[in-house]
């Protein structure tokens, strides 16, 4: 519980000198404390400034480093999503297409188009397409992106038949 008590005392934005002043410790010790807090996930954000790095500390730890369903996109999600494992691009494509269908928003389709080149596992992709019920939408997206983007990966025969491209 040492880290949590520290995080409670240092809530908010801090520089190294702020920490050493608040806790009455040496600067070198405060670097060590920052390292321990970072390891447990209590540091949410770091910003490098000319007067020294600023650290945002909170009492609720962020759960994992690889988080955020919409990590690579410009869209701001209303809620924070965390996942231990990095979410594969196959999953992201399916999720974005589902969102575009629900909210009738073209921006999600544009974001999904950027990820088409990174498809590697077609079996995985087909599972997500079935789960989100968007096989038709993916078919359209694939045909469009073949015209616009270079080196779009070709579909294996089996999935060509299943998706109907």
């Amino acid at each position, binding site marked *: 519980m040492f880290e949590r008590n520290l995080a409670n005392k240092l809530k908010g934005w801090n520089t190294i000198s702020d920490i050493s002043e608040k806790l009455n410790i040496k600067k070198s010790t405060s670097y060590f404390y920052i390292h321990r807090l970072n390891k447990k996930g209590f540091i949410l954000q770091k910003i490098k400034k000319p007067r020294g790095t600023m650290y945002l500390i909170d009492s609720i730890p962020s759960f994992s480093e690889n988080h955020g369903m919409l990590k690579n996109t410009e869209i701001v999600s209303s*809620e*924070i999503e965390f996942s231990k494992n990095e979410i594969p691009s196959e999953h992201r494509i399916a999720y974005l297409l589902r969102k575009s269908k629900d909210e009738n928003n073209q921006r999600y389709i544009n974001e999904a188009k950027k990820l088409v080149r990174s498809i590697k596992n077609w079996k995985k992709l087909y599972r997500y397409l079935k789960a989100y019920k968007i096989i038709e939408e993916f078919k359209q997206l694939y045909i469009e992106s073949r015209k616009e983007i270079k080196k779009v990966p070709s579909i294996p025969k089996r999935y060509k038949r299943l998706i109907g491209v």
Partner: protein
Amino acid sequence: MLADKELLENLLNYIGKKLSHEVDGLLIGGNAMIFYGLRGQTKDIDLVLFDKYDIAAITQIIKSHPLFKESKIIKKLPYKINPELLKMGEPTVIQNSDLPRFDIFYKHVFSIDTEKIFQNCKRTLRFDLLKLKLVEPEDLIFLKSVSRRPVDQDDIVRIIKNLQINWKYFLEFVKKYHKKDDRVIWLVLGNLYDINKKEELIPKFVIEEIVKLFGLKL
């Protein structure tokens, strides 16, 4: 056997990978405490789901897990709770003697409607196709204070000491719920009063406002 964070994540990942459609749910109780970093282990895994088909799918997947093959589905709770609270929110319990227990609720947790709590959540944990919302600390205090177990009282103290709690939001929620069901709020009041007797952790205005709802004075 108690479940730690790693086992919990592995079990939830297993469920997520076996699902054939996206399932939304709510993570409450000891599991939520684990993800807030306030506990190391838990006896049971409490999930709230909002679709009956989802409950059927998840129970089937849990039964297919090699560790849970011999587990049994029980409709009775293994611990004591106020019988009035059991009218609506009885969980489906999947239990094996040595392993952590699964308690799966449908919409209500011990007669408490969780739809508002589900909408208020800001953090989501994703395990492949299983999407679980993490209950907010204020709502966790509310849920824990309804059941009057000594373990839950310790948990409430731990939450208040370690996390920043928006008491105004908590009061608003209590006032809204009072219009629906005042028996539940009476239980919450009793529990918070007991905690404050031992150590003054809850601000006085919170208890005073709740007492006012019943036309009483401290």
